[in-house]
């Protein structure tokens, strides 16, 4: 059976703590992208920004968790010092006629369950995804994997 989803593009398991991980040269072959992050950080409840094509702005987002619902001008995943995971779906990433929608599910069983929706207000095709937070780290052993999904 031909695999149409979760086609592996790149993966890294951190061998040392890192504040920035960048997936680059993403081919425009697929319909959607899925980013899976699983591991720990050195700070609980810390936002690690998900930036597309090196753009540090031009995002809007809505989040909901167990205690609140709010909007923000950044799209991010929420880390934890105990094991957490985040799944980000970037829809229609290679399209050049629309803004890019991102969906988030973020799970930290000892702190919170999150859902989020974001939009990068650019029509450029996504060719890089950066996960970053200055001054904080994703810890050794954290795995980040990027997958493509065919239409």
């Amino acid at each position, binding site marked *: *059976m031909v*695999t149409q*989803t*979760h*086609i*592996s*593009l*790149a*993966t*890294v398991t951190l061998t040392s703590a890192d504040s920035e*991980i*960048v*997936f*680059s*040269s*993403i*081919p425009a072959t697929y319909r959607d992208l899925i980013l*899976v*992050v*699983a*591991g*720990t950080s050195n700070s609980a409840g810390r936002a690690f920004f998900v930036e597309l094509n090196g753009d540090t702005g031009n995002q809007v987002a809505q989040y*909901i*968790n*167990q*205690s609140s*619902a709010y909007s923000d001008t950044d799209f991010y995943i929420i880390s934890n010092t*105990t*094991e*957490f*995971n985040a*799944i980000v779906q970037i829809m229609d990433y290679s399209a050049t006629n629309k803004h890019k929608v991102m969906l988030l*599910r*973020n*799970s*930290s*069983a*000892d*702190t*919170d*369950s*999150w*859902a989020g929706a974001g939009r990068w207000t650019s029509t450029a095709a996504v060719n890089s995804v950066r996960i970053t937070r200055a001054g904080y780290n994703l810890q050794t*052993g954290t*795995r*980040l*994997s*990027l*997958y*493509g999904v065919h239409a």
Partner: protein
Amino acid sequence: MKHIETISLSSGSAASLVFSNIPAIYTDLLLVTSIRDTSGGFQLVLLDINSSSVDRRFRTLYGNGVGGVSSQNQNDGNPQTMIGLVNGAPGGSVNITAYTSVQIYFPNYRSSASKTFTADCVAGNNATENYSFLTAGLWEQSAPITSLTLRTTNSIAQYSSASLYGITAGSDGITTVS
């Protein structure tokens, strides 16, 4: 993504749906189920990892379309991990043909660290009362996941089914990561 196994209840009910001897060749697992309980009313959908009854915790965010969003937390010591609600069979006050849909993602299921999972559940019901759940789960053991068990409060009804998929992380030779 590769299909590992599908379990379907084509005749009769069952106490559980069990995926055992999960191959240790993938990076992540995805479990998808359409499930229903044999008793009336809303019943629990439960998940067991490696048949373990300890070292489990979860946090769930849920809503029923009537009131505001609610939440529930369970820490170590709770006897079961709830990932959602399912409608029961005829006899209750809920629609008799509605099954609950659940998707559970297990990243790094072979890791020697604690295992997390993300579960999304929507209970089917042809009425204004219904439920959706967003659950964060954690199994705090170092062993790899080798079995997954789905249960409901009573018994799992006929025509329920579940499928397990394996996802392998790697490289396409084009995309780089730094």
